[in-house]
């Protein structure tokens, strides 16, 4: 087989055919659906969850994962936080001419692995090749379909006093990827948190009551995600700076580069807002999982009109947090 991707791998002809056979079907394992324009699959219940994301991360391999693992986990998490059980994934590749086929195989392997671990099937795919200089290695879109198996979900109704939880330390992914880019000249000793959270979140939903909403604070970080919830549902929340779980290494990098961990991307974390009286139960469940072992309460809902996010400083003063606004971050997801 060829060593590098050429334009002919994307022209729909013989080389495309072989690439699909040797790289994708080999790993994803469903020879049949490659025969058809569309995959045909069973859906047991009447409501489904659908999400899509493109992944353009640089570098494509980083401590703790790769664009492949990320592309699967990222979409699984979007389904999981919406209360659905992820069942099917599609993937669309845009590959730059000259990309090493060995790297592509590694990526596809990571995808297959993560899919298997989490029990989802990759049922359809597509490959396009663009000229050298018209992409940066490889971009992957994944679209996920989930089903609502439980007959309870997130209530999306909030009350004053509801607890805001985060399932672990923040900023790990952002900092690990910035370090891996090399450009900043920093060696960071931590891994991306990239992980699929579906089983953990499903257990939370199944075994507790009063979950208001779940979210994965990816691009834009914890602050941006909370601001979105605050605005969308017109609740005011307060989080405590001292309670935020941030690794020392992340603190160090942020200080060196002037970043704020509140705005750094996470790829294996969930925010859960839950009724005050259920928070310990949720924490207990989260902490049973390796991905949730650092779960903590970081704040609470303090009001129901304004749609603001407040940060309480160690001195006890409060300040308003807004969305990430135009910091020029490199591509980290």
């Amino acid at each position: 087989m060829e060593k590098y991707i050429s334009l002919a791998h994307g022209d729909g002809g013989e080389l495309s055919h072989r690439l699909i056979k040797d790289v994708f079907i080999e790993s994803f394992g469903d020879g049949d659906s490659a025969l058809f324009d569309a995959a045909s699959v069973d859906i047991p219940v009447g409501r489904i969850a659908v999400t899509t994301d493109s992944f353009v991360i640089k570098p494509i391999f980083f401590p703790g994962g790769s664009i492949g693992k990320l592309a699967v986990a990222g979409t699984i998490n979007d389904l999981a936080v919406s209360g659905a059980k992820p069942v099917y994934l599609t993937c669309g590749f845009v590959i730059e001419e000259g990309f090493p086929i060995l790297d592509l195989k590694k990526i596809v392997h990571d995808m297959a692995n993560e899919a298997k671990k989490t029990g989802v099937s990759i049922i359809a795919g597509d490959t396009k090749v663009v000229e050298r200089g018209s992409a940066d290695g490889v971009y992957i879109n994944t679209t996920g379909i989930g089903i609502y198996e439980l007959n309870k979900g997130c209530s999306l109704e909030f009350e004053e006093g509801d607890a805001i939880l985060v399932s672990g330390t923040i900023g790990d992914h952002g900092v690990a990827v910035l370090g891996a880019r090399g450009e900043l000249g920093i060696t960071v000793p931590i891994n991306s948190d990239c992980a699929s959270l579906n089983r953990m979140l499903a257990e939370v939903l199944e075994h507790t009551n009063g979950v208001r909403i779940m979210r994965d604070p990816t691009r834009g970080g914890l602050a941006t995600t909370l601001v979105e919830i605050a605005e969308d549902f017109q609740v005011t929340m307060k989080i405590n700076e001292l309670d935020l779980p941030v690794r020392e290494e992340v603190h160090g990098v942020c200080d060196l580069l002037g970043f704020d961990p509140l705005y750094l991307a996470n790829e294996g974390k969930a925010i859960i807002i839950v009724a005050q009286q259920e928070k310990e139960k949720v924490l207990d469940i989260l902490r049973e999982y390796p991905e949730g072992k650092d779960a903590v309460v970081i704040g609470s809902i303090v009001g129901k009109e304004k749609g603001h996010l407040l940060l309480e400083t160690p001195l006890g003063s409060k300040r308003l947090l807004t969305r990430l606004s135009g910091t020029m971050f490199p591509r980290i997801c």
Partner: protein
Amino acid sequence: MCVGVPAKVVKKMEYSAVVDVMGSQTTVGIIFVPEVEFGDYVIVHAGQAMSIVDETYAKQSVEEWRKLVNARNSETV
């Protein structure tokens, strides 16, 4: 631009040093602090070590805070 965190010198070269900032490492210039030693803490600005932290003075500052705090606490009690 960093303001606070002191960086610990973990390797000294001729014109630069590897420093550790809470576990992450980076290389900084040491032309302005040629006397810096392994183990010293430095203040870094835009990639250059500008000053070596004098730990004795640092501890003195902390003592100053504590004194003020203790004074207040005993007052309150």
